[in-house]
């Protein structure tokens, strides 16, 4: 059989039309062709991503297709065979990353829990953002220290903290640091500490 890799094999065997000759693969696939199996990802858009789990940074290839209503359907996530890091391989978590992306456990609406309440209320983004902004300003004004006891200019907000970020993009992280330091936060932490 001719020396052929998995990717090329799938490309050839997925061809819906055209005679497959013995020369192409080194053997006759006429019988297999008779089964007429269409690849799940045939005609799909191929994009690149990186696994959201550990810090190996496995390359991912993600396949999508547009639905008739214009929405995008995620078909498949697999390892990127060209990545010098994982060479197409994925661990059980990476291999099932699609489950993370499509999980129905995700929070569908912005939610608000009032003080002392035993339940969530569905609210819109504006309601929540306005209330949070008021809280931020009030807490900042109450706990801001401009000058410390020794007369040093310190300009710090002692009563607001931020924690997190290991799972979002660097660009979001940078913006977080910029905003939080601008608000005067000194308690700025993420998973590295723990």
């Amino acid at each position: 059989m001719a020396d052929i890799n998995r990717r090329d094999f799938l490309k050839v065997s997925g061809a819906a039309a055209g005679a497959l000759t013995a020369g192409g693969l080194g053997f006759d696939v006429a019988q297999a062709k008779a089964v007429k199996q269409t690849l799940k990802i045939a005609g799909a858009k191929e994009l690149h991503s990186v696994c959201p789990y550990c810090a190996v940074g496995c390359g991912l290839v993600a396949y999508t297709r547009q639905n008739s209503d214009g929405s995008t359907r995620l078909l498949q996530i697999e390892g990127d065979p060209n990545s010098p890091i994982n060479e197409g391989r994925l661990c059980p978590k990476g291999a099932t990353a699609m489950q993370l992306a499509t999980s129905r456990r995700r929070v569908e609406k912005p939610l608000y829990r009032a003080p002392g309440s035993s339940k969530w209320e569905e609210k819109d983004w504006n309601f929540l953002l306005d209330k949070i902004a008021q809280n931020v300003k009030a807490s900042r004004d109450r706990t801001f220290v401009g000058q410390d006891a020794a007369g040093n200019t310190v300009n710090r907000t002692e009563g607001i903290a931020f924690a997190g970020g290991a799972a979002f993009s660097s660009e979001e992280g940078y913006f977080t640091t910029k905003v939080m330091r601008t608000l005067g936060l000194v308690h700025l932490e993420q998973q590295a500490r723990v």
Partner: protein
Amino acid sequence: MTNHWRDLKNADLILINGANPAEAHPVGFQWFIKAKLDPERGPGAGGGAKIIHADPRFTRTSALADTYLQIRTGTDVAYFGGFINYVLDKGLFHDEYVRNYTNASWIVKDGYSFKDGLFSGYSKDKRSYDISTWAYENTATSGSDTFARRDMTLQDPRSVFQLMKAHYARYTPEAVENITGIPKADFLKVAELVGEMGRPDKVMSIVYAVGLTHHTTGGQLIRSAAVLQLLLGNVGRPGGGVNAERGHANIQGNTDHAISWEILPGYMRIPAPGQKNLDDYVAQSAPKKSDPNSWNFFGLNYRNFTVSLLKSWYGKGATKDNEFAFDYIPKPAVNSSWISIFDQALKGKMEGLLLSGMTATSIGPDSNQVLQGLANLKWLVVMDAFPTTSSEFWRAPGQDPAKIQTEVFMLPATHWIEKEGSFVNSGRWAQWKDQVVPPEGNARHDNWILAELFDRVKRLYQSGGGKFPDPINAMTLEYADPLKPSFDELASEINGKDLTTGKQMASFALLKADGTTSAGNWIYTSSYTESGNNMKRRKGIEDPAANDPTGMDFYPNWT
């Protein structure tokens, strides 16, 4: 990592401490196995690299290691110390490397000592060290530089080399056995392999994870590994280095961008109270060289990096006349890290907390403390795609919601695959990811959430006044839509610009302290240049000859 994942296949010997990569980083672990299966690698005549796993537990990594050593938790200082002693005692260190490329030849000043388990300068009352004696003997001053005296023969009893030899002499194989629990004979078998790694044609890698960091002595544990590697000449070589296996998809990127109380993006220190201006700040923070031949690029560029960062953040609000807005940066007085957040909350001093993609109750060492802390807050914001033990804390088992006054806001955030942007792995490769699917339903990107929030806070200050709104008013938002900064715009800002031409900076070496350059993070300067987004490059293993011409696994055009 000083090196990177694929590079591990170049090692002759791999020491794994406080880590279980076969289970926790399985795809990365393929490179350890490749080294093991490569007949060109390995001690002696080769036949495959050897893997030594030192861990309190026998795990799947242990099962694949050539030698498993059961070690008592947190005793790796004695373990590495034992190898350091072995290597020094038998003269197996890499002589040329140690002599020329480490501080082994530098003379330590009189006054430094170590006796009965304590270094010089210890105050019993303060329970801390005055470290002024922990310094070199100086020989000459040139400008603001003071150089250390050196003895290239390494014989001077006050040389770092000789002091180190004396210090590590205590870690005999017997002492190692007593402290670590590793039988002396087993330890010596591994020591012999380690000793061989000082040869210029051999290279060893040390790999670790939270088994070394999760200790109050974590810094010392890791530093011991670094000292050993420097003695053996294993830093700065393929297959070598001191390699942390980090835990999250982008912990490295966000560490670099300083979501940490004590640093600024690019690892400059957060300023301290008492530092009145940039001169004070740089004088007290920037590393200084002790050798005339030392490049000290970080110390040399400290001010350039800091001013360029301030220009990114405060733009026209950062000028020569106001120390480039130096005072806009908050100056913490005390440790303001993770533990402090909940400590302060328990004391009623922390009013609000924002969490993103991280659940405090499940990640810290004391869930109960966190639950109590969260219940003490006035408000809690959780930005996440899923409900978490933190967003739901107020109705956790054993909690009485009626008694908990915390206002809680659950903001649905987007998944990694619903947005572009870069993730930086443990090997420090910044890889750009495409936006594969649009945000689902009501979910929003974290940067859009924060931009909206910031805008509202700013308006409140503008209409109602309040404490020191200056930084808030000055913060740059040079985005097509300030409420929706795009990932490209942010990446471009992080890279930095030449403010006189408007062009992207090509290199961190070109950053200046006169306000003519900006860079959100000098480490990433040249990631997003005039020629494009370098983090998007994908020249990989499909053509090794073209894409990795040296064959040393650099793949310089993959990201």
